[in-house]
């Protein structure tokens, strides 16, 4: 997809966030249990975002003996940015899933969970290295 096409697709999906009547006008109202399950998944993503945000604060506040101020700030900002991404994606995925359920389509596939998992694993490993070498040094 071209950059322009991507931009238009993004604008399209953000438009959907604020247009409940457009989502409601399509397909049939599903069993309420599906909607509630979708809502819980949304909330779980919001909590994931909160965990990343909390982790950002924790890195800046509790790793003072291990990292210089700039590295701490960079890591904290990266985690906070991850939280922001998770938040946006939570809403986007929720709307798209709701739409897919209404239309009887398969749920939207996404690379996001895998990317997030890799990112968190890398950050975790980096933290382990930092803390271990911080003690050794």
């Amino acid at each position, binding site marked *: 997809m071209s950059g322009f096409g991507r931009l238009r697709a993004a604008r399209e999906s953000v438009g959907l966030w604020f247009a409940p009547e457009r989502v409601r006008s399509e397909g049939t109202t599903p069993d309420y249990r599906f909607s*509630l399950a979708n809502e819980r998944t949304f*909330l779980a993503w919001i909590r994931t975002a*909160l965990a990343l945000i909390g982790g950002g604060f924790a890195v800046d506040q509790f790793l003072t003996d291990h990292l210089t101020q700039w590295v701490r700030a960079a890591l904290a900002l990266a985690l906070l940015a991850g939280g922001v991404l998770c938040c946006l994606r939570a809403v986007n995925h929720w709307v798209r899933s709701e739409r897919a359920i209404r239309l009887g389509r398969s749920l939207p596939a996404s690379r996001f969970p895998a990317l997030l998992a890799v990112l968190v694993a890398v950050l975790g490993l980096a933290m382990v290295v930092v803390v271990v070498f911080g003690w050794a040094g």
Partner: protein
Amino acid sequence: MSGTEPGGPRPAVETDRDPGLQPERTRLAWRRTTLSWAVAGVLAVRQALRADDSAVGGIAVGLAAFGFLGILVLAHRRLTGLDPARPEALPNRWAVAAAACTLLLALCGAALVWWGSTG
């Protein structure tokens, strides 16, 4: 096969009370979310207390408190909205609002970390 053999999947039964307790589980998910918000909020306040610039800290705490209030009001309204046997789906606006409150906390945090490290 009607699926009535033991061990097989039971056909869905329409009852007043959802046997899967879906509304209850959704209510608990909202509670967990407000609790997670509270934990992240406490860390944000701690971050603000460490800030050199008390004006930035004050504004950030104010905004974070506003976000927490927003999540609490949303969660409370949703909890009561889940009372009927067949609750309505979550309105779009509420989902966007819940995400916006969390976004606000992240942005406050970014401001605090930024000014904490440059100021």
